């Protein structure tokens, strides 16, 4: 029933997109983006899951197995876990950049309402 996880990730993504499209508060827009990021983490980790599998660690294989057997046996997908690690780091970096821009916007325009920030408008 990993499909439930996939659909939950899609729902999270949709929620984040909705927040992004409809809110005018810049902090909430950044929160919407973070929600969308979080949905990719959930999706990648769910995609790596295999029914009844163990972690892809060859350090101490379950009793009766050797590391070699484990490498060919039923384990979760390590490549997608690596993708998730990458996504987390990039998500943190991007959120930090957005937040610092928001702080500067708030200082310059004295508002967080995206509609009031209109210096670039004709």
């Amino acid at each position, binding site marked *: 029933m*990993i*499909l439930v996880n*996939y*659909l939950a*990730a*899609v*729902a999270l*993504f*949709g*929620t984040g*997109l*909705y927040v992004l*499209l*409809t*809110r*005018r*508060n810049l902090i909430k827009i950044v929160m919407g983006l973070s929600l969308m990021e979080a949905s990719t983490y959930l*999706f990648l980790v769910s*995609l790596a*899951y*295999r*029914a009844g599998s163990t*972690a*892809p*660690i*060859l*350090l101490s294989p379950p009793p009766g197995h050797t*590391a*070699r057997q484990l*490498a*060919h046996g039923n*384990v979760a*997908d*390590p*490549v*997608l*876990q*690596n993708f998730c*690690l*990458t996504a*987390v*780091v*990039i998500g*943190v*970096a*991007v959120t*930090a*950049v957005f*937040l*610092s*821009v928001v*702080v*500067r916007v708030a*200082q310059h325009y*004295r508002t967080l*309402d995206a*509609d009031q920030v209109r210096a670039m408008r004709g």
Partner: protein
Amino acid sequence: MTRAGIDDNRSVARAADREATEREPRHRPWVGALLAAGIAAALGVAVAGIPREHAPLPLIARYALDIAIPRWKLTEPVNEIVYGTRGFDTFGETFLLLAAVMSVVVITRPREPRRGYFGEAAAGAREQTQDDPAVGADPTEQEARSAERREQGGASHGEEPVETPDAVPLGTPAPERAEAMTVVVRTAIRVVLPILAVAGLYLVVWGYSPGGGFPGGAVMLGVLLLVYAAFGRRKISRVIRPDLLENLELAGAALIIMTEFLGLVFQGSFSANWLPLAQLMTPLSGGVAQLFSASELIEVATGLAIVVFALLGISHDWAPDEGRGSSGGDGGQGQ
């Protein structure tokens, strides 16, 4: 209308304004909901058709699991992928992180160079907060300035700062100065801190078991933030300095470039392993992967620390913009 009446009207208008912002206006919620729901539906249909939990592992995952022990002597395939098979990807990610850190530094940087993240703004605070009589600030700026003055009230003419929060006698009336936390928190953090720091380093050194530079770096940032939260910024100001952190960060980046590039020199391929592999399940068993992981610890820990402290230390720059200041004399610019 009398002056008082005008003022009254203004405050009513402002109150209405505030109420309007508290009700939080939105942009076309129905269009947004429709678009978001449409995209979610399309994605939902797409994920219904992708492999589920009973699908066989992709070939690339099997390959990584297969070569982890023979080629890298690593018992942790995820680390083998991060720093070995997909090392080039991690290399790119590192520099994406570096680019983000640089953007934050550029965005949050005050106009004059500073040696510390905190405290230095206080030196020029009097001049900074003074209104320039020649310019005559507009009402919103006056309001913002007075609000900032109110916020800083305690800091600028409060009691003498003490050397360490431990010197404040117990039972001093609350709220304590926002420098440090209570003695309970400080003691707990003193106990936890060395354990946490060792755990962070363990994650990196024992890279053949789950761990690596990224989680290790995040733990080291946690250590720094705990010290900051518990003991105040004065305690960390000797370590958390922009010049030190930024140089460390760039040294980490240089180490990563060197690690990956020497593979091209010695082995003929970028990010190939050029170090001898130690025995299985020893800290040096990953060869170049462990070196990469350790450099990544430096990179992530200092990068995240720079970002967090740059955001914490961000202060309002009252110097007028070049375009705006020109009408009212030289507007205190460039003096």
